[in-house]
């Protein structure tokens, strides 16, 4: 039987505020354990939370960017459960009146656009971090708890079960990450846990409109992990059904090293959160003027920016999609084009050399030593004929690893291209005189002989000859024009 997968994602993202959601502790990542804590986030008796206004602002911003309706009335609720990373024994979250709901996010997979529904966006507080004494939680006689992360503001963004393949799930998460970065509400560092993703997965016969029993997959810490975990889980469910078994509704954890999902113990899944309205926080009444003010502050979002690059610069949609997938990369592109208005050439260099070197070093564009001014200057030197395209690539790598500007590298390495016609003519004549046989071949119709002669001239000049000029001089002398 042919099956199709039904996937919905729950994404948690830490917001880039200065202070926590209900207290003034810093949200900085990586402090010494338990140094970013206070009586409020530690849940000591007698304290009261007070809501950070910027958290609400960011939540509305993301709601708008995801085409949601912003609630006119919203409130917080307590989600009750016992776990050592949660000092109050409840998490302040939102249950039935989330700040935003009913949106959508268009994604593109294999050239086709598809709209993925956004069920809801709600605000909540993050939990602390556990350090287990053994190799796993069940093998640890004790665990250590760091509450620095407790109370860091989170947005939970829940999609409709509209995703059908692991590729679509990945495209959705990448698009969501781009929007969170464009709007500047989150760093989205999956490796630091500031962007986390859980998936609900089920399969059903193609053509069926009923949902199968779903499993929830946790612990996917990269885009690759998300895709691999979903591929594994879909295959696992197919095998269970095809061998006559049935899917058990459960939470499964992705084991990156083994490449499998593993059932989590049912004891950890006693889901009975007994939500009730948070009595320590008063409700939110969201004024329309505030929402409109935030709407006006939204930056150009990835899709609009992509359209602009296609429309204004004639970039191929694929290139425009890659460049706008990250705000930092798109900013780099725009700043370079402002200095060197040949957008197609800039795009070729960004898509080619720059991304190749960034990916090879697993680097982010913000850590790149090459700045827009440097790339623009390099392209100008190439346009002027000072350097050849081949030299430019060598210089680009040097710029990438040292941060030097291209002019300095050209001077230091004597990379200036020989474009002096008299100087090159002398070399060309010498090469022709030294290779009479090859000249014969060319005249007898062997076009490839020309390439050999060009190569000889480049060799004589240590690669510095202007290739266009060498071709012209050779052809003049061989009378092939």
């Amino acid at each position, binding site marked *: 039987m042919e099956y199709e997968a039904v996937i919905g994602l729950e994404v948690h993202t830490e917001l880039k505020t200065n*202070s926590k959601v209900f207290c003034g502790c810093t949200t900085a990542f990586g402090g010494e354990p338990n140094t970013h804590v206070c009586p409020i*986030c530690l849940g000591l008796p007698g304290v009261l939370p*007070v809501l950070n206004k910027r958290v609400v602002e960011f939540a509305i911003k993301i709601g708008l960017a995801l085409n949601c309706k912003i609630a006119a009335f919203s409130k917080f609720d307590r989600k009750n459960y*016992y776990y050592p990373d949660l000092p109050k024994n409840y998490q302040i979250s939102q249950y039935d009146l989330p700040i935003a709901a009913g949106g959508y996010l268009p994604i593109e997979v294999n050239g086709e656009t598809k709209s993925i529904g956004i069920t809801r966006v709600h605000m909540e507080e993050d939990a602390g971090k556990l350090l287990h004494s053994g190799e796993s939680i069940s093998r640890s006689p004790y665990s250590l708890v760091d509450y620095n992360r407790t109370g860091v503001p989170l947005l939970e963004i829940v999609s409709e079960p509209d995703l059908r393949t692991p590729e679509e799930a990945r495209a959705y998460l990448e698009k969501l990450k781009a929007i969170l970065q464009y709007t500047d509400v989150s760093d989205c560092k999956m490796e630091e846990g500031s962007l986390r993703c859980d998936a609900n997965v089920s399969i059903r016969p193609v053509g069926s409109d009923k949902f199968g029993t779903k499993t929830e997959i946790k612990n996917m810490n990269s885009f690759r992990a998300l895709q691999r975990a979903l591929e594994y889980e879909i295959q696992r469910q197919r095998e269970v059904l095809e061998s006559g078994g049935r899917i058990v509704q459960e939470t499964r954890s992705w084991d990156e090293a083994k490449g499998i999902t593993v059932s989590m113990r049912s004891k950890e899944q006693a889901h009975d959160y007994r939500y009730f309205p948070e009595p320590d926080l*008063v409700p939110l009444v969201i004024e329309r003027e505030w929402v409109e003010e935030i709407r006006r502050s939204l930056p150009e979002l990835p899709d609009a920016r992509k359209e602009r690059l296609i429309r204004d610069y004639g970039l191929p949609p694929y290139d425009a999609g890659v460049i706008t997938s990250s705000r930092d990369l798109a900013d780099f592109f725009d700043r370079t084009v402002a200095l060197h208005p040949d957008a197609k050439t800039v795009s070729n260099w960004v898509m080619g050399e720059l991304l190749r070197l960034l990916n090879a070093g697993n680097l982010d564009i913000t850590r790149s030593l090459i700045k827009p001014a440097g790339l623009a200057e390099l392209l100008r030197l190439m346009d002027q004929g000072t350097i050849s395209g081949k030299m430019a690539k060598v210089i680009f790598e040097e710029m990438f690893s040292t941060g030097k500007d291209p002019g300095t590298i050209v001077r230091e390495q004597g990379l200036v291209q020989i474009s002096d016609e008299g100087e090159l003519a002398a070399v060309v004549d010498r090469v022709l005189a030294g290779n009479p046989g090859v000249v014969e071949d060319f005249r007898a119709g062997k076009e490839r002989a020309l390439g050999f002669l060009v190569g000889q001239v480049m060799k004589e000049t240590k690669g510095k000859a202007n290739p266009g000029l060498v071709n012209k001089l050779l052809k003049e002398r061989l009378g092939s024009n």
Partner: protein
Amino acid sequence: MALVTISKADVEHVALLARLELTEEEKERYTQQLNNILGYMEKMNALDTAGVEPTAHVLPMQNVFREDAARPGLPRELALHNAPQAQDGMYKVPRIV
């Protein structure tokens, strides 16, 4: 509305969720007490609230915010002061699962 009652099994379930260990005698007693409370709710249910807006909070207040400014929290020694056990600047807790 049908009368809601609480069984001993409900009490055991809630006790488990709240990490409370109850004796048999306590289970009986709390089942009785919780049913008394629910009985009182039934009395309130008799009131006509058709024209009354549901409230999310007892106070007639809304939109209480603080500005997003960080300030120092507790020194770590104080934060860990009441911890039954601590190690390496962290709270030490017994086996979780």
